[in-house]
């Protein structure tokens, strides 16, 4: 069971999705492309969200590589700008992977999204289509644990190979898990630093130097 982390505070007069956004760009007007996608894939196009003029197309997970291939070959979206994931922290369809595609010639930008359930973290890789997706998919795997099937080199991007956690998941604490990542000793003869935020976790941090005895310390206070 996931607990709610924060209370929600949305002022009433904040802009709602239907209001015009001063930063909306002409490049994100892609209604024609969405129509073409609906015509080609039908049921596999699950939903469409528009906010600030940006179109987000929700695609069935199994068809994402086909949709990308269609967009690349038929619609000219050959430039993959960004690929990443997000943790929605819900019981169903917990993770999201988004694809930011650009058609340079037509000046269009489109975002695709797939939802990934925690029980089945496999998503077809788009690296065979866009080589630019290689590192981005690795990063998404590293940070969220989403597994991209067909990726040629699914290693961790930033974290060590034997790190057991996926740090960008919402349940991973901001200060890390003590002992998960041993760091070099603070003193030449010292032990490994098992917790870089010892003070925040309630124990005394290791000093990298020996503090000189203070004349105002507790032992001397009676003098």
């Amino acid at each position: 069971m996931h607990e709610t982390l924060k209370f929600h505070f949305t002022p009433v007069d904040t802009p709602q999705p239907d209001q015009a956004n001063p930063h909306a760009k002409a490049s994100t007007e892609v209604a024609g492309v969405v129509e073409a996608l609906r015509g080609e894939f039908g049921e596999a196009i699950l939903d469409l969200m528009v906010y600030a003029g940006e179109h987000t197309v929700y695609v069935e997970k199994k068809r994402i590589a086909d949709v990308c291939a269609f967009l690349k070959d038929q619609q000219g979206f050959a430039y993959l700008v960004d690929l990443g994931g997000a943790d929605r922290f819900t019981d169903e369809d917990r993770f999201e992977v988004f694809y930011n595609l650009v058609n340079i010639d037509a000046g269009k930008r489109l975002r695709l999204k797939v939802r990934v359930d925690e029980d089945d973290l496999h998503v077809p890789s788009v690296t065979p289509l866009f080589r630019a997706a290689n590192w981005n998919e690795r990063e998404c795997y590293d940070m969220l644990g989403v597994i991209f099937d067909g990726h040629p080199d699914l290693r961790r991007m930033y974290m060590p190979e034997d790190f057991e956690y996926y740090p960008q998941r919402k349940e991973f604490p901001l200060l890390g898990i003590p002992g998960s990542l041993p760091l070099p000793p603070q003193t030449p003869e010292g032990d490994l630093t098992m917790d870089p935020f010892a003070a925040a976790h309630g124990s005394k941090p290791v000093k990298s130097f020996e503090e000189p005895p203070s004349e105002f310390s507790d032992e001397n206070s009676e003098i």
Partner: protein
Amino acid sequence: MSTTIEYAGVESEDLFSFWPRHNEAIQQRLESKHAWLEERHHPEAQHDRAEDALEHQMTLNIGPQHPATHGVLRCVVKLDGELIEKCVLDIGYLHRGIEKLAESKTYQEFMPYTDRMDYLAPYANNVAWCLAVEKLAGIEVPERAQWIRMIMCELARISSHLLWLGVGLMDAGAVSVFLWTFQGREDLYNIFDEMTGARFTVSHSRIGGLASDISPRALDLIRDFVDRYPAIVQGWRKFLNRNRIWIGRNEGVGVVTAEEAIALGLTGPNLRGSGVPYDIRRFEPYLKYDEVDFTIPLRTEGDCLARYHVRMEEMLESLKIIEQCLDRLPEGPIRADDAKQAYPTKDEVYYSMEGLIHDFMYTDTGVAPPKGAAAYHAIESPKGELGFYLESDGTGNPWRARINAPSYTNLQGLEWMMEGHPVADIVVLIGSIDPVMGEADK
């Protein structure tokens, strides 16, 4: 599968168990990597391979602690003689997890972290973050603030390109240019100091506007810089465009065709050096870029020399843009006049109770975009397309802040670009890609 190395007198639990396994993974990747070299039909690749692997093959580590790698970049290269057969880049030595940190900060609190991404052009990162949040929350920024932001973004571009030029030439063996460009950077630091109060990590832009207005002295400094610098940059170009060593080191090195550049996802000057006219300032005009007159430098050769020309011409174009901004700088407020969109002025904070409350509320919660909102906004930073994809859950903290860092995507292209070149070209190639590890490692 992990292998632990035994050291005398040391328990294996005491060691960094990840290091051998990390290296093993890199080695596996190096062995299994698709040999792009043979596909590219390099004449060098066709030469008779020696049967004896020991004669010709070597795996070499360059970095992470190597001055020519521009930060903590580790290149693992498999050499055939002097030629790079395969290259695997290992990044993450500067990983701080700022995407995760952003989730526990308010939108305004995250600003100093953006300074430390591309620390050669912090102002551009500030503006990129502000614009992304403003798009997410639908905040409109006053005219004057937009023009000032443009001036500072272009100054940041010049500052970043000056460092690239100096360091790039130092990699190729010319030390004096480094000293000249750092004089220019010193002038720019003085401008940033006068404008923002900080020389390096400026954190000056605010959501909904700017922290402070531009002072008359800062305007004078900028005008002086814009007047002096075209001639200086042209002087460098005159000197470098005919420099035999510089041309020899760069011409035909790291050639990327337009199709390859798009497939690899290169951005910024690296993409435009290959002849792809993709510049966010034209593709999705932000601020007032659709109202000023400038050209996008473009080259079709796709080699290091083309990227050099693109960046040099970009500096001159930036100076032109700044000149137009200075001429057209309107009078007016520098922050949105809405307590839920931007900080109140200091006058309001000190002399009215509402102002103080608004200041407190803005620091405590800040902007709260509607629940479920998601937006992506990109700017053309000196390194390329710098975009932030934000998701809101209705609170003052972003639910998800995804950073699309140009250095990250460019480094991915570098891995491929290096293959087929001699070892000596590594430093020139890294220089021409212009990566900043603070940004690539997030």
